[in-house]
């Protein structure tokens, strides 16, 4: 038998001035199950809460209805109060008679009538409320960072600093990512390698950090606090524990015509290689696509020269499985391919390069040892044209609809560095808009214009034509002068749009996280939860969430780390008890619920059941993981048999509310 207490709040005059609170309390006292109905000046005040607490004890209440302000204001207050008085906090319902009644209606008679109906509706619901207990789920105190670029490294270091184990999974043979390829950073112009490599070393030396290089995530199961991840350790044909990184093998390898990814394909490396001098881990890797030993069994030079005996041509891909409490996604980006933009003649002319290629051309560790020379004839370029927004802000399928954010600044950087080092060079930048929101960003750009005399031209290049004399004719418009320009350049640099790494999409599926149409991970809330994914326990770091520059990436990496640390600090997670649950006896196992669950909270298992006809049958039934479910209720409607229901918002509760409203 229900014993319900109703408490009507005056909220000073906020409610009492347009709702006859005494009449509401009186009317509701006659509802079935109501044993006490009172009104009070401020129900949320301490004395108001005490009134409720005392009534719970005195009348042995089984449910409490507070007629007051919006539940979004004080639901928790009253739940806590009731809990203190020994009543399950989920046996409290709020009738919103302030925002939904007294504040919007002027006529006291109709407002009072409506308040009574709202109260009655809450009573109808609370009658069907059941005590709910929050589940506790243990947390594995280890984090996984997917991606070993600057974002991943930073997140890993921060988590490790807090005293938790971190594993970094990097698909390349070394960590470092794109930042390792960059020469200088804007707007300070300090050397990227100088600030990145110490961090890489730090990561490799931190005893809490474990780096799985040349590895990929192949499967993710579980949920917040308790993920089980399968990691594929790709065969590198070199025993990591034995290789000392001496580099002898790379010198002796006869296969020397392998395009060097690290230098953006501008020069060559060997089939067994260490990507760059400061690689971490500094271990050789054999490229099976080029190694003659692996391809046709003829060679074996590296194995012969290796004093450590680290080369192992028989190595196979290995899989390891580990448990993690939190996962940080830091899969980063790549520039898109310029191949689709015929008008810029990238594939026709070696002297049309992308910004990343320019980065390597100018780098001291690059193919030219830091001297800026044209790839075609190794001559010093005298006239350089930069084209911005190639593929960014693009409405068709050749490019990306978004602004890639970093191009304006690195183009200014390039222009400035070139003008500084080679003052005789003329530099033109074709731009649509120059976007420089950031600390010292606009100052930096202005310096390029004012101090370094870079020619910024508002307009786009329409066509790039390589000419027989080695020059490249750039035809573009100068919109401010309203004229069409033709510049005979020596080098053309394309600021390509950036896109999320291709590995991100399958990863998102494994992690059951959401992605937008551009394959950027979607954050849980664009303003308030920018580093969390909607799936609990998965955090986003760096460009995988959206275009960012280095400082932003690092800031987000640390933020994601902080969120992960916050999770790992807990011994267990308290789950929201208002989650879905399936009645196994009614479940058909049809998978409709699983398909609409945005969190992957529903799994299926085959279970043995005693059927109504007394036979025993094995049936496929759904079960909801309460630690993962967020309680949206999508599954409850997808389920045709009604086996899925939602705690706190059950079918019967909502229907009781409907009945009470329509009475």
């Amino acid at each position, binding site marked *: 038998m229900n014993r319900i207490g109703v408490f009507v709040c005056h909220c000073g005059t906020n409610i009492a001035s347009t709702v006859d609170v005494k009449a509401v309390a009186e009317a509701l006292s006659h509802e079935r199950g109501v044993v006490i109905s009172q009104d009070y000046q401020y129900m949320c005040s301490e004395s108001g809460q005490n009134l409720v607490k005392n009534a719970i004890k005195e009348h042995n209440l089984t449910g409490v209805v507070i007629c007051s302000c919006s539940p979004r204001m004080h639901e928790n207050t009253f739940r806590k109060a009731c809990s203190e008085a020994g009543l399950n906090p989920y046996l409290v319902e709020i009738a919103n008679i302030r925002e939904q009644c007294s504040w919007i209606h002027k006529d006291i008679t109709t407002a009072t009538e409506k308040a009574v109906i709202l109260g009655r509706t809450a009573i109808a619901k609370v009658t069907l409320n059941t005590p709910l207990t929050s589940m506790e789920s243990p947390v594995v105190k280890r984090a996984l960072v997917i991606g070993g670029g600057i974002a991943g490294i930073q997140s890993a270091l921060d988590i490790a600093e807090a005293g938790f184990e971190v594993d970094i999974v990097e698909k390349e043979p070394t960590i470092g990512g794109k930042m390792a390829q960059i020469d200088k950073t804007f707007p300070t112009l300090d050397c990227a390698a100088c600030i990145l490599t110490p961090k890489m070393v730090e990561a490799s030396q931190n005893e809490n950090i474990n780096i799985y290089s040349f590895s990929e995530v192949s499967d993710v199961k579980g949920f917040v606090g308790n993920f089980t991840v399968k990691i594929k350790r790709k065969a590198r044909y070199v025993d990591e524990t034995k290789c000392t990184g001496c580099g002898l093998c790379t010198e002796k390898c006869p296969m020397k015509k392998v395009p060097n990814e690290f230098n953006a394909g501008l020069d060559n490396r060997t089939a067994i290689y260490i990507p760059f001098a400061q690689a971490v881990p500094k271990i050789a890797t054999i490229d099976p696509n080029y190694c003659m030993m692996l391809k046709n069994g003829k060679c074996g030079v590296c194995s012969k020269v290796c004093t450590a005996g680290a080369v192992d041509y028989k190595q196979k891909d290995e899989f390891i499985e580990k448990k993690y409490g939190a996962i940080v996604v830091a899969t980063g980006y790549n520039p898109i391919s310029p191949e689709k933009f015929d008008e810029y003649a990238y594939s026709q002319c070696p002297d049309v390069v992308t910004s990343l290629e320019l980065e390597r051309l100018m780098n001291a560790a690059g193919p030219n040892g830091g001297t800026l020379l044209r790839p075609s004839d190794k001559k010093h370029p005298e006239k350089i044209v930069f084209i911005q927004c190639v593929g960014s802000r693009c409405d068709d399928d050749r490019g990306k609809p978004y602004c890639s954010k970093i191009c304006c600044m690195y183009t200014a950087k390039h222009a400035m560095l070139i003008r500084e080092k080679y003052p005789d060079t003329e530099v033109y930048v074709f731009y649509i808009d120059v976007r420089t929101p950031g600390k010292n960003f606009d100052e930096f750009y202005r310096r390029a214009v004012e101090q370094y005399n870079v020619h910024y031209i508002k307009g786009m290049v329409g066509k790039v034509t390589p000419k027989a004399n080695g020059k490249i004719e750039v035809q573009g418009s100068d919109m401010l002068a309203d004229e069409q320009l033709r510049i005979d350049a020596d080098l053309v640099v394309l600021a390509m749009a950036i896109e999320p790494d291709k590995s991100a999409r399958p990863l998102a599926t494994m992690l059951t996280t959401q992605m937008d149409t551009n394959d950027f991970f979607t954050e849980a809330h664009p303003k308030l939860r920018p580093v969390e994914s909607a799936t609990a326990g998965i955090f986003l770091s760096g460009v995988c969430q959206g275009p960012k520059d280095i400082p932003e990436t690092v800031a987000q990496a640390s933020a994601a780390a902080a969120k992960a640390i916050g999770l790992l600090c807990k011994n267990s997670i308290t789950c929201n008890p208002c989650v879905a649950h399936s009645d196994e006896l009614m479940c058909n196992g049809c998978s409709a619920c699983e398909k609409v669950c945005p969190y992957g909270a529903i799994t299926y298992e085959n279970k043995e059941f005693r059927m109504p006809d007394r036979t025993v049958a094995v049936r496929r039934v759904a079960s909801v993981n309460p630690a993962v479910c967020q309680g949206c209720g999508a599954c409850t409607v997808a389920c045709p048999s009604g086996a899925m229901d939602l705690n706190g918002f059950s079918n019967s509760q909502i229907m009781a509310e409907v*009945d009470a409203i329509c009475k």
Partner: protein
Amino acid sequence: MLKISLDRLDDFFARVASEQSLYMPVDREDGQAEFRKWTEGSKLSQRLNTVRSAKDFFFPQTENLVDFKIQGKNIEVLDTREECEDFAVFGVRACDARSFSILDKVFLCEPVDSYYKNRREHGVIISLSCTRPAETCFCTVFGIDPVEPEGDISCSTDGKSMFFKVNTPKGEEFVKKFADVFEDGDPAQLEKMKEFSRNVFKKLPLANLSTDSFGGDKMMKLFNSPKWAELSEACIGCGTCTFICPTCQCYDIRDFKTNDGVKRFRCWDSCMYSEFTKMAHGNPRVSQLERFRQRFMHKLVYFPSNNDGEFGCVGCGRCLTKCPSSINIVKVMKALEVEE
């Protein structure tokens, strides 16, 4: 004998309908017949049988038993029963006419079902003899003479006139009330027609179905027959057979929560349903086999054993036409008979 010439039959209907409700079979657009209240222009259906039987008038699919009015914490009980008005059902075939003797045995024995009784007292059944039976007809198997149907009044036609034979005092009263529309007629031709019809019935494919294997004394043997498994295999557990059956009389009593109280009503139930006679532990008949067996055991064994050998089936053939899987009492009887 009382008669009305066929061309004046509509006048008769109009006359009756002017004083009380009159129901009779009329054709629907889909080629089936159903009982409808007579209104100007209604045409008597020439089809053999209606989809739903005449039982509906006396034992409707749902009927309100009592209302509870709830105000706050008070409950008020309202008896909603009212004296039924007089009505007549015309064109009831012999099978349906016999069904009332079966229903009466159930509803009018102690304790009397006052809702049913009220309707029975006020409803006159005017039956109509059959001349053109369908292949699904097997009423003769249960000792029904389709040419001389039961009912308060029974009608037969010789092609020119409708002859009325009064069988009960209620029928007598009805005829008296509308005495002005009847003429006196010679049923000689009618008798010849009847004889002809009886011969047609003998030719029906199911005319030789035997009930010998059934009845109370063979209860356990039939109950334990292994045939039920195979017979019930295709049963989808719907209530079609039950709801169109003129003799099925099971019902459930349920409460409906209205906005200001509760309506307690009864509604037909079907022993084919998994929720039939559900109690705290569930349905006592847990499998479709048991539920299927129940229906036919009830009609062929339990009912006759409690009612002096009278079977619970009248051979109207509705379930033969309508079963989605074409399983029916005839197939059951034949299968179990073979065993005998």
